[in-house]
């Protein structure tokens, strides 16, 4: 079955890919010679490979084929096992496996009882073993595609993957002949996938990554500062995900079927499995088109069922669920002590992100200046399902030449744990008065030190002496209540007046800078008419600051140092 290509790989040579190992779907990606990440399709042409394994008479089926076995061979089909890896039965939620092989206790881990060798023989297969088989299949697909044996990978995992889970995954992967070079978190992988595009420029921005998957949704708020990423907050939700959207469609079609035939297809496991599979396909179709059909042969009692649904109807049915997605994201932003106004970018990742309604809801939640990166709002957006695989592939290409120890040392907390600035640092323009001057940030908050930022400032029209006042800026959200003018006279409908009432208390939120501690003042004398002044702020690792200011094209300039604060406070644990 598995074609192993041994050739073309010298001793010690590392050929690494990126793997996104999801609970519902996995994908694999590699990096082309030009450094571009590409997703690999498996033998069946799937880029989204369901994380399913199924066994019929000793034959192993993987991916889509395995998934379709949910109907007839559900007891020997293993699904949604990623989250069980490295856990014991007490700490797992077996709900997603309701329609497939059920997890059970096996020593200190979780296992499945399946007939994987021959019929009538129940074997207990641990989740690690399942994972090994899954990764082996993924690696072999990649090897087939690349023509070179894949022997290493960067795997993306959720941010709350515990040390035990990581260890178990490393072991399972190793058993499959794939060395885990590094495990990176899914949201960071998504950000990296966008940032590694050649047209991307390095900018300081605040990003929300919403990884909306099949069985869980994970939100992370990430500060991207000069190409380095720090996670400010995360939130995880196991009740708001693609499966719930499928369930809405299942319920809808089941009711429709019941109206005609008086049988509830949900009562029968087989019928339910059929309906679920079709509903998922219908949901995907609804993300692309305005209409989608669903047809199941012999759904229940031998009756065929076919029906259609349009997107409006679907959005109506799932409105509450969509609201839950929005709330979840809002919640994560709040958890990071930020406001929606602080967010520069929202990256939608994961299969559920294809849903157009979720993106439009987010457009409403965030200010217009926030870029929502999803296929329905931005034509140049990367396919959300493949984001973490691409990110992992890019990381793999970056580190595959490294020695193992090198990688370990680089990901060591001594390297990764870094002080992050609590407040922004910037320069006052227009007026040097703390109350009147406008604060212009040079270094944003949550920037990891050491860092260096520069800004080129204009001077008054006639030139002359200017003062550079460097201070800390504290971001403040200013709320002004905007009174909507009542539209009198138009007595045409009640709903109009209702709307007015709601809008009356409309609050306009604005992001403003409050000037905090003044750090230093510097003077540049006799700037030429129309000249410019360049200010560079250099923050050392001990929070000492070096400020340099000079006229662009001029000589000399001013340079000064600030002492480091007496003590650095540790983050509140």
């Amino acid at each position, binding site marked *: 079955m598995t074609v192993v290509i041994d050739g073309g790989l010298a001793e010690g040579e590392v050929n690494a890919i990126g793997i996104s190992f999801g609970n519902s779907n996995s994908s694999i990606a590699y990096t082309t010679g030009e450094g571009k990440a590409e997703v690999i399709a498996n033998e069946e042409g799937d880029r989204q490979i369901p994380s399913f394994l199924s066994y019929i008479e000793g034959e192993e089926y993987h991916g889509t084929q395995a998934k379709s076995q949910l109907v007839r061979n559900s007891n020997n089909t293993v699904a949604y096992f990623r989250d069980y890896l490295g856990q014991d039965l007490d700490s797992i939620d077996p709900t997603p496996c309701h329609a497939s092989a059920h997890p059970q206790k096996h020593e200190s881990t979780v296992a499945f009882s399946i007939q994987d060798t021959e019929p009538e023989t129940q074997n207990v297969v641990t989740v690690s073993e399942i994972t090994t088989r899954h990764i082996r299949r993924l690696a072999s697909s990649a090897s087939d595609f690349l023509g070179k044996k894949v022997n290493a990978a960067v795997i993306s995992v959720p941010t709350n993957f515990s040390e035990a889970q990581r260890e178990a995954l490393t072991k399972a992967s190793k058993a499959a002949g794939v060395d885990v070079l590094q495990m*990176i978190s899914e949201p960071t992988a998504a950000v990296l996938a966008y940032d590694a595009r050649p047209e991307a420029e390095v900018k300081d921005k605040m990003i929300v990554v919403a990884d909306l998957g099949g069985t869980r949704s994970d939100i992370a708020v990430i500060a991207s500062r000069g190409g380095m990423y720090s996670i400010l907050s995360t939130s995880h939700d196991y009740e708001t995900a693609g499966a719930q959207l499928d369930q809405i469609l299942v319920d809808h079609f089941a009711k429709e079927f019941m109206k005609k035939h008086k049988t509830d297809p949900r009562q029968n496991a087989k019928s339910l499995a059929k309906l679920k599979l079709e509903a998922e396909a219908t949901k995907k179709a609804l993300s692309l088109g305005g209409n989608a059909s669903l047809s199941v042969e012999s759904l229940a009692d031998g009756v065929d069922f076919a029906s259609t649904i349009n997107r409006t109807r679907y959005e109506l049915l799932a409105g509450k669920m969509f609201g839950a997605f929005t709330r979840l994201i809002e919640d994560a932003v709040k958890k990071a002590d930020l406001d929606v106004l602080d967010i520069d970018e929202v990256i939608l990742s994961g299969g559920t992100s294809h849903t157009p309604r979720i993106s439009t809801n987010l457009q409403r939640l965030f200010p217009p200046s926030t870029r929502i990166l999803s296929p329905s709002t931005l034509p140049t957006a990367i396919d959300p399902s493949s984001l973490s695989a691409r990110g992992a592939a890019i990381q793999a290409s970056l580190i595959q030449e490294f020695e193992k120890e090198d990688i370990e040392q680089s990901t060591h907390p001594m390297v990764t744990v*870094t002080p992050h600035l609590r407040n922004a640092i910037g320069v006052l323009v227009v007026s040097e008065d703390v109350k009147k001057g406008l604060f212009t940030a040079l270094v944003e908050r949550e920037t990891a030190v050491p860092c260096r930022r520069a800004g080129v400032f204009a001077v008054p029209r006639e030139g002359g002496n200017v003062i550079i006042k460097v201070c800390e800026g504290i971001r403040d959200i200013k709320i002004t209540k905007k009174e909507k003018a009542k539209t009198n006279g138009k007595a045409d409908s009640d709903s109009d007046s209702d709307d007015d009432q709601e809008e009356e208390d409309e609050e306009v939120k604005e992001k403003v800078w409050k000037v905090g501690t003044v750090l230093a003042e510097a003077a540049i004398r006799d700037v030429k008419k129309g000249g410019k002044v360049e200010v560079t702020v250099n923050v050392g690792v001990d929070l000492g600051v070096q400020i340099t200011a000079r006229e662009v094209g001029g000589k000399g300039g001013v340079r*000064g140092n600030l002492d480091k*604060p007496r003590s650095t406070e540790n983050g509140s644990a």
Partner: protein
Amino acid sequence: MAAVQVSLPLPVLPQGWSEEKDFKPIGQLSSATQRNIEPVGPHFLAHARRKRHHRTFSEDERIQAQENVKRVEDDDAGDISEPEDPLMLQRDAKDWKGQDHYAVLGLSKYRYKATESQIKRAHRKKVLRHHPDKKAAAGSSEDDSFFKCIQKATEILLDPVKRRQFDSVDEAAGVEPPSKKQAQKQGFFKSWSPVFEAEGRFSKDQPVPKLGDDNSTKEEVEEFYNFWYNFDSWRSFEYQDEDVPDDNENRDQKRHVERKNNNARKKKKTEDTARLRALVDTCMQGDERIKRFKKEQQAGKNKKRLEREAAEKKEKEDKIKAAEEQERLRKEAEEAAKAERAEGKKAKEAAKNAVKKNKRVLKGSVKDANYLVPAGEEAGAKRVDDVLNDVEAVMAKIEPEEMALLASKLNGLKVADEVGSIWGDEIKRLVDAGKIEDGDTKVLGK
């Protein structure tokens, strides 16, 4: 990173600003937060290279570094663990309307205050424990009724609309108003505050004003009661609806039940409003502050009244006094005038008498001088008449003082020449003074 381009101008250097080397350090950076950088991407690798400088880190350092990091992942919250009531575990999911959803999820101490993420975490925790697969693993029967209860509870609590409906009728979250005895025993504020806090959950306007304490100002207390008398509640009673039969059964029956439900809801809502009013009434009756404010107000009013009365009295007295004073002054003036008049009369009389006397002297003088006829001659009647007329004419013109002077000059004189010369002088003086004409006198002064 490219330099930021800022088009707004830098401020002009203030006059007199000078510093050595043109640089003046003032402050220091705020302390920093320790965070993990994601070990991902080319920029990180560059950072790692810079930071490592070929140093190797020990396990110990690793632990220390990790300890200081600000946590971004949630712990499995320990705050949502409550002992499970064995009776509750026996519940049948079909009877979900009667079940306390918060208790099922172990959130009974939070109730309406539980956040969405708390509910989600609580649900997860419960699922981890009660999933039927786990029971099967533990060897007990595959009874999943409590698991269904958990699912139902989560379904309701995670749906904002359904949750409100349940919260509306969640008796366990309410606080019974204290009886009078209780209120006395526990103290008014301590016993009533939780009642209003609990009732406040139904308010559409948040935050709800607090009952406050003995030191609350009158405005605060008034605002509090005003708020509660105009309470805008979202409480509704759909949750207690009778089940509406399925839509493919009898339509009339369905409508009937719906109507009944609607009426019941309305009735309950009215009752609830009345209940709340009664509650606020009772509270207000027992509120010592209201009594105090009334007393104070009364006292204030009385004080005002007394002040006013005193002022009035004073005014009256002042008026009377002023009138009396006036009267007195008037009387005094009158008396003075009277006295003056009397005096004047006397003087006048005296003057008159003097004038009379003087006149008599004058007349007498001419008579004594034998009407100024030369000695030895007899004065004819005409002569007497002329002389007396002249004397009369002079007397009519002359002032009393002059008359007195004249009289004093004439007094005792009997010799005609002497008297005649005095009269002559007198008439001449009078003529000179222009008081009489030269021809007015016929005899005297000739």
